[in-house]
């Protein structure tokens, strides 16, 4: 159990991390945040590469910052494919084991085992330069796994891979760790956080905004910022106000939904993009298409309606020319209510699941 208490780090007056309160338990912990949110800074502090400027970093009561790097059990996988260029794949994986002084046949056994798990067995005698990008990153992951460290750190390991390779490796990653290991995995992608599962830690501008099981954070974001970070494409958020029992969003007006908090006046209303559908529903958003972007198996339809830009996430691939009429529908039960400062007042009633 690793504890971070009021941990902060600033470099030359620039704040990188501030007031981090966090408990990392064995299992998967995903650091979700945009670029420059402080993910890499936090990983470096956890790895012992940087020292916090304030606060404490302890493991089971022991101060980690005083422990020399060589005495700690940490593995780090980076965005770039970092391998020993002059070593074969086999020697790359064996390197951390040799440093531990393991016996020859024990090393051979572990190398074979790890290579099988990350599926690079046929490549053991090649040099890193002879591997594709995906294979190079598999090798870097293999070396980290071989180390069998108690703390495994991943800094957006898939970001430099081709789309299909990323998809494949992402599916395998979760199964590669064992129970006792504490995995900290940094990513910008909501779907990756959901797929890795475990605990999600939402990081923004050097601070932790929310922590909890991935699906709970996804369905009950504590603030507009969390909702925007934890949704691809970002959640639709529009300013709203209540007048005579009706909710007004820009030019749109509708009866106030039952789950809206009592006494509501000015607020911000959120609607997840996948909640806008083309099958008729109580809220009608009629306007014109700004752009249709395809992502994996869905289409992000950007459109303008009621004086507001909206994004709908539609299943499947749809060609929508720019300027074509677009009508989306939504259910008032799916609206999130946030206070004007962005804190959550009421989650969508539709935040249900089987």
């Amino acid at each position, binding site marked *: 159990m690793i504890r971070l208490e009021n941990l902060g780090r600033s470099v030359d007056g620039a704040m990188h991390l501030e007031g981090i309160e966090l408990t990392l338990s064995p299992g998967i912990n995903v650091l979700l945040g945009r670029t420059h949110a402080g993910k890499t800074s936090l990983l470096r502090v956890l790895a012992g590469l940087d020292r916090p400027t304030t606060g404490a970093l302890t493991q089971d009561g022991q101060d980690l910052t005083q422990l020399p790097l060589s005495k700690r059990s940490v593995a780090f996988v980076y965005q770039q494919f970092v391998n020993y260029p002059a070593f074969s794949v086999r020697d790359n994986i064996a390197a951390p084991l040799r440093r531990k002084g393991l016996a020859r046949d024990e090393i051979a056994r572990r190398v074979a085992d790890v290579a099988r798990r990350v599926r690079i067995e046929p490549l053991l005698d090649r040099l890193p330069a002879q591997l594709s990008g995906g294979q190079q990153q598999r090798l870097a992951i293999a070396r980290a796994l071989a180390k069998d460290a108690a703390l495994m750190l991943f800094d957006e390991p898939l970001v430099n891979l081709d*789309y299909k390779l990323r998809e494949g490796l992402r599916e395998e990653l979760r199964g590669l760790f064992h129970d006792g290991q504490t995995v900290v995995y940094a990513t910008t992608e909501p779907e990756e956080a959901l797929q890795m599962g475990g605990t999600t830690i939402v990081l923004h501008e050097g601070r932790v905004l929310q922590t909890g099981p991935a699906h709970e954070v996804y369905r009950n974001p504590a603030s507009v910022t969390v909702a925007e970070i934890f949704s691809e494409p970002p959640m639709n958020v529009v300013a709203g106000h209540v007048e005579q029992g009706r909710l007004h969003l820009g030019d749109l007006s509708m009866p106030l939904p039952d789950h809206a908090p009592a006494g509501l006046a000015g607020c911000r209303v959120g609607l997840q993009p996948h909640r806008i559908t083309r099958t008729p529903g109580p809220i009608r958003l009629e306007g014109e298409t700004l752009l249709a972007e395809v992502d994996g198996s869905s289409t992000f339809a950007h459109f303008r309606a009621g004086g507001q830009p909206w994004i709908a996430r539609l299943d499947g*691939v749809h060609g929508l020319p720019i300027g074509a009429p677009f009508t989306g529908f939504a259910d008032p039960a799916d609206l999130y209510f946030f206070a004007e400062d962005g804190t959550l007042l009421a989650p969508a009633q539709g935040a249900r699941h089987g």
Partner: protein
Amino acid sequence: MAEITISGLRHSYDGDLSDPSRLALKGIDHVWRDGGAYALLGPSGCGKSSMLNIISGLIRPTAGRILFDGRDVTDLRPEERNIAQVFQFPVLYDTMTVQENLAFPLRNRKVAPAAITRRVAEVAEMLDLGPLLKRRASRLGAAEKQKISLGRGLVREDVAAILFDEPLTVIDPQVKFDLRRKLKLVHETLKLTLVYVTHDQSEALTFADQVVVMSDGEVVQAGTPEELYERPAHAFVGRFIGSPGMNFLPCRIEEGEIRFDGGRLSAPGLRRLAGQEGLSLGLRPQALQPADAATGVEGEMVGLEDRGHYRIADVALGGARLKMRLAEGVPAPQGRFPVAFRPGSTLVFAGDRLVGDLADAQA
């Protein structure tokens, strides 16, 4: 603007056409229609970059011809072809201002200064570069730089086509939307022939009206984004497009039924394929659904992955493992459960080729 015709194109980097397995391009015939927005999509090493360089004239193909509007340009050099190209990383003349960069192709062609100024202003207006014209190009952000690269192609009124080589790689995700929209608007306004080369299906499907999918030196399918997604003509397209890709379930057709390990489906319309070897069912993850009543096919839940507003179930069907997509609100089945196949989305492949679907077969 021009229609680009490619016929009998074969290319080998050592000039030797005798061994087909070593060719970078293995015989391609394709027509890029005038004014079309095309994507050339495929994994690295599929030959798409060779194809791009052959169209632009940087590589001379070992065999085959390239025609622009019926005129043979195979032996013409790039500067004689009126092709413009936008590269993966912004390629700019660092010492010049934005205006000078845009004017450069025209100045080299000895266009009158007044005409240059007018044309540069028009293009800058279209790309929202007007306020930046006097700035040094090297000081701008990646998105502006890519717009300048594009602008250098657009200033030439005689340009036959603009080629894009993964032009959004260095663009921040937040700015991509603007640039994508700008590209589409430029295409709609000018009706240029555009060819966009990428390995990323999202880029290809977002940009193009027609996507040409290449694999291993061959064109495996050309079609609209919807066609590629809903009716992939080749198994490679099914796997490559969509996330997760298409499931393939080996099967055979006997007595008017599709039979596979774990079940059977009635398909009287597919008798013509009876007894044929190498058949399989191509199933997008949403083609499979839990059914309310027995369907003759029973699957078993092996795993479930929550991806927010949908879940991907790992289903064992006989000896095969399939991915099934469950929409939000659909309860996840437990243990053994009856599986329904959506007829229109259950495709039949012979070898790698699409030969029919369950909807026709049951009609």
